[in-house]
Every structure is written in structure tokens, then in C-alpha cells.
């Protein structure tokens, strides 16, 4: 899942600041304090959260590094030691399966049980029930999001219902040729086609996958979508694109861009289909962490309502923190695309990861892109 690609400058700034912080830490107060290493997505934590934590816990310093895909995170885990990481659902399942996570003492993270939405634990997070049932013992939800239809209200009528065929219809409509946005990301694109056809987002059935592939190729020929990731947001804001697939966080980012530009935020809307993807990014502690106790303190801090609210506002993704949700602006809190109803929630599917899924989906996506 490739959601966050920080601008190059931001990345440089982060690296510089982390280096600077690291130097400060090692030179000035190495004797008294413990430094924990936090490995996070880019632009996925409010600017002052770490400073607030260090003010509240002067004995702990936090050094943050960023990654831009779960796979990048996975590859660095064995060679480096981090104390807190932010893997997505399917990656947590994989790490649990491979025994790479430390089992935290949940009594040291009381804010999790106190504030986090208990509905999340009902989601099936892996095809193997034994693994799925363990995920919430190893990891704490940080932020969550959904995949939905982003559309320009002036050009595209609101979907008639939340059935996949109604919601995704504009993406396959030649009427909007050259004005459709698709993520250049295999799970999202193949997932939309599978959902549209009424199949599971984790299907490995060859006939179903062939149908999804045919649908995506037909879409490329008729609706002529623009494929991208970050560059799409500006195109929705400027009205160049009429509709597209989007992560809920990108929708919120578009709303912020509209506000910044002094435009009406009702220009862009977001709709979810039944059975669409729901993803959770978790806070977890790797087995090779050097300071798991301090890591638990940090995770508990991130689960406190005020901090969770600030981080959610900054990142644009939904907070599982029920207390923080109460303080959200009404425009976000009442948006069922960001905070879905119970009925919708029951239909959502989380991505599973397996070698069969990875190789089949990537072959489909490469053929569609090469078409």
C-alpha cells in the first residue's frame, strides 16, 4: 500500500532533522535518556507530537525515520533495530506469522482498550484465523482508512446506491474519457474491478481474476484513465479529473487543498461501495527492539485522545480513538465515508497477503499497464 509519498524536500528535511536530533541526543544527554527509534510513514504524524511526548517524558527521546511502503519497512526490519513501527494490517499479519513482533504488555497501553473503537477487532485480518485472532494482541490501531470513489459533484451525479456497480460506474463510463483517475497500485486497481464484479478483494480464482483484468483493459481503452498516485490530487482539485479511486486520506487532502485555494469544499465528494477495502495502520514493536518498555509508553501516548486527534487531522486518515472522534469537526465526523456506519462496516474487506495473491495481481496489473 503506497499511500504516503512525501515530497522530496520534506524527506530531505526529515533526514536532516533526524540527523540533527540524533547528534544532539548523542552529544548532550546520552547518559540520562533513552532514545527510541520510530519508523513511520512520511507525513503521518503531527509536527509537534514527538516534541509533546518528549516534554511529557523527558527521560525518553524519539528519533523518527520514514518509509514509503510496507515492503520497504519489511525489508529493513532484520537489518535495523526499531522500537516502534507502523505496518498496515496485512503486514502485521505477516509479521505475526513470522514471529517478528514483540508481544506488548497491554496493561502498559491502557489508552488502547479505553479509547479505541472495539469494532475494528471484528475485522478479519488474515485468511488464517489463528493469525487473524492474534493481530490485536500484538499491535494497536493507529489510523484507518477506506478506498472509495472521489468525484466532482458538478460533473458526476452522486451514486444511486452503495452497491459496487452504482458506485464505481463513472470509472468505466466513456462519457468521462480522459477525466478518470486510477491509482497505479495493483491492489487498489484490481480490487476496484473485483469489487465492481461482485468478487472478493482477495480472490485467487483464475476466472474471476481474468474477468477483472478484462474489465481494466476495457476501461483503459474506453474511459482512458490517468494513472498516478500523488499527482492525481491536484487534478481533482483543478477539476481536470471528474472521478477516480481514492484513499479516504487523499480525499481529505483534496478538501484541505480546496479550502487553501478558497474554493467550495462541496465541489468534491467521496462515496464508499459495499465490500470495499478497509485498512488499518497499526503501531507495533519489533522483536529486535532495544527498548520495548519505552516503546509501550510512546504507543500509549499516541493513543491519548488529544494526540490521536492532532495526528488524524494532520494525516487525513480516520482515528480509531472514540474520544478523539467527539472533538472532530462535524464535517469530518459526520462523513460516513470517513467514519462508516455499522452496516457498511460489516461489508468491508481487509487485504490479505500471500505469494499467490502477490504474483497473480502483479501479473494482471503489469499486463493492464502495458496494454
Amino acid at each position, binding site marked *: 500500500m503506497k499511500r504516503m509519498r512525501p515530497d522530496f524536500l520534506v524527506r530531505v528535511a526529515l533526514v536532516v532533522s533526524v540527523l540533527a536530533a540524533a547528534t544532539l541526543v548523542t552529544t548532550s544527554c546520552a547518559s540520562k535518556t533513552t532514545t527510541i527509534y520510530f519508523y513511520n510513514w512520511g507525513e503521518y504524524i503531527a509536527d509537534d507530537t514527538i516534541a509533546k511526548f518528549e516534554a511529557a517524558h523527558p527521560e525518553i527521546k524519539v528519533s523518527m525515520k520514514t518509509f514509503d511502503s510496507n515492503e520497504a519497512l519489511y525489508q529493513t526490519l532484520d537489518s535495523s533495530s526499531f522500537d516502534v513501527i507502523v505496518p498496515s494490517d496485512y503486514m502485521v499479519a505477516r509479521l505475526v506469522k513470522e514471529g517478528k513482533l514483540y508481544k506488548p504488555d497491554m496493561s502498559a497501553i491502557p489508552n488502547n482498550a479505553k479509547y479505541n473503537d472495539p469494532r475494528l477487532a471484528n475485522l478479519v485480518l488474515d485468511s488464517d484465523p489463528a493469525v487473524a485472532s492474534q493481530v490485536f494482541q500484538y499491535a494497536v490501531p493507529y489510523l484507518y482508512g477506506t478506498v472509495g470513489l472521489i468525484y466532482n459533484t458538478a460533473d458526476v451525479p452522486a451514486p444511486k446506491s452503495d452497491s459496487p456497480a452504482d458506485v464505481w460506474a463513472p470509472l468505466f463510463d466513456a462519457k468521462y474519457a480522459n477525466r478518470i483517475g486510477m491509482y*497505479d497500485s495493483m491492489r487498489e486497481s484490481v480490487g476496484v474491478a473485483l469489487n465492481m464484479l461482485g468478487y472478493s478483494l482477495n480472490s485467487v480464482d483464475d476466472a474471476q481474476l481474468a474477468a477483472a483484468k478484462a474489465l481494466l483493459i476495457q476501461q*483503459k481503452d474506453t474511459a482512458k484513465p*490517468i494513472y498516478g498516485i500523488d499527482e492525481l490530487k491536484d487534478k481533482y482539485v483543478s477539476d481536470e479529473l471528474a472521478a477516480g479511486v481514492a484513499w479516504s486520506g487523499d480525499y481529505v487532502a483534496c478538501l484541505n487543498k480546496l479550502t487553501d485555494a478558497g474554493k467550495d469544499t462541496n465541489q468534491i465528494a467521496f462515496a464508499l461501495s459495499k465490500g470495499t477495502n478497509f485498512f488499518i495502520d497499526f503501531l507495533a514493536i519489533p522483536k529486535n527492539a532495544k527498548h520495548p518498555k519505552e516503546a509501550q509508553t510512546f504507543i500509549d501516548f499516541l493513543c491519548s485522545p488529544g494526540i490521536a486527534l492532532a495526528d488524524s487531522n494532520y494525516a487525513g486518515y480516520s482515528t480509531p480513538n472514540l474520544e478523539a472522534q467527539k472533538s472532530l469537526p462535524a464535517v469530518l465526523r459526520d462523513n460516513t465515508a470517513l467514519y462508516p456506519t455499522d452496516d457498511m462496516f460489516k461489508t468491508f474487506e481487509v487485504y490479505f497477503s500471500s505469494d499467490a495473491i502477490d504474483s497473480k495481481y502483479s501479473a494482471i496489473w*503489469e*499486463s493492464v*499497464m*502495458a*496494454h
Partner: protein
Amino acid sequence: MKLRWMAYPYVLWTVVFTIAPLLLVAWFAFTTMQPDGSTVFTFSGFEKIVGGDRVPLDLLGLQKIFGITLDVPLYLNIFVKSLQIALLSTLACLAFGYPAAYLLARRTANRRGGTDLLLLLFVIPMWMNALLRTYAWLALLEPNGIVNTVLSAVGLPRGQFLYNDFGIGLGMVYNYLPFMVLPIYSVLVKVDRSVIEAAEDLGADRRHVFTRVTLPLSMPGVMSGINMVFMPAMTTFLIPNLLGGGRYMLIGNVIERQYMIARDWTTASALSIVLLVFVLASMKFLTRYEKGNEGGGVLL
């Protein structure tokens, strides 16, 4: 001969930055990593290139105009499409670039002022990064970009300039035109004035002077220019990526995706090898006509 040691740094440079990477590409093309971490010899990359989906060949309206449908492997179709766009861009560069080089050379021969400035104007855009120059076209030609805004302001219909053959072709011609103009100019400017006067004395009219004297003398420059435009046009992925809306797959893009996104290094390297062999063969073919290599092009 005493200064022979001065060549060693260049030898080292070539070995480290040209030969070693090429060998690595060849190694990746014929090997694959097993799940247990061992590396085995394989042809799977090359098999994937000729296998895979079969699609109708998309060559110069073969299907639309002549109604001929020829199913070919997906990658072959992309290769043909890239070749077609590269050839058309090269021809366009030649069509625009030759007259420009000719006029510039004439100005120089006639010792008219300002020629240096004109040459400079051709070169100045190359001082900027190609990425930035191409981004500028994006801002100009976008559906809601500057050109369309002006068009609709004066009551003309808006056009779809980007994400199609036109946009890609424009990006290529714009980026590569100086590489066509400069070699041709540098050859033309060296053509001895007395050769042309001799032709005129012997009764050739201006058309004949051009077709029988100037044009043949300028052929080394033309060949260098073709070389320097065709090769990058065939392999670019930057231009189709930016101006193609992410849906334009030329051979360069396919290789980039295989390396960076699909992470299938075997297929990516196999594709690179095929492309490299093709490029080397066409360079060999072109350099046969470029004996003196006066245009300052690539030697082989």
C-alpha cells in the same frame, strides 16, 4: 606515448561505470532468485517477452486503415510502438532541424552578425533539466492549462494535447531538436565555400547545388543527428511518463516498471538486453554512412 598512463583513469571509469553494469544486467537477465535465496540460471525473462498476452499489432494504422489484424506478444507490440514514435520524432526533428542548421550555417558563411546569439538560443534550454522543461509543457498543455485557457478565452474549442501521441511526439521533438541541429550545423559550416562556387561555375542551379553538393556533404552530420535523437527517443521513459498521463507504455517505461514496481529484475534485464542489441545494431547500420564522423556523433 609517454602520456599513456593518462588514459588509465578513463579505462577505470569505463570498466566501473559501463562494462560492469552491463555485465550485471546480463547476469540478471539469465538468473532468477529462488525463494530459498539461491540463484539459478533461467530463460524465463526472455520467455516472458515473447509469451504473455497477445494483442493486435498497432502499427501505423495497420488495423484501422487496412483492416489487418495481426496478433503479436504484448511486449513486441510495445517495442513496435516505441520504434514508431522514435522514428516519427526523429523525422520531425530532421524536418525542423535541417533547415535551421542550413540557415545558421549560411549566416555564418556570410559573416552576418547575431549567429552566435541564435546558436546560443538553441542551446540555452539544454542548460535546464529535462524534467523541468517537460514539466513546463505539462503546465502549458494540461486540459485546464495555459494554452486551453487562452483558446477558450478567444472563443476557440479546447484541445486534448496531452496523454496521446501528439503530446509524446511534441515532448520528444522539443527535447531532442538541438541534438539534430548542432551536428548538422557543425558539418555544414565547414563546407568549403569554393566547392559551392565551383558547382555554380559549372552551371548548377541552386537546387542542384543543394541536392548534388551541400546535402551529400552534410550527410555525416545528418547521420550523427539521427543517432543522437533516435537512440534517446527509443529508450526514454521520462517523456511518456510525464506527458502520457501514466498510461503510456513505451519500452523504456516497461523496463522502468519491471525494475522499480514489479521488481522482476529478470524480465527487466532481458528487455534491456533486447533493446541494447537493437540499439547497437541500428547504430552499426547508421555509422556505416558516417565514415569521417565529422558531426561529432557516437563512434562505434
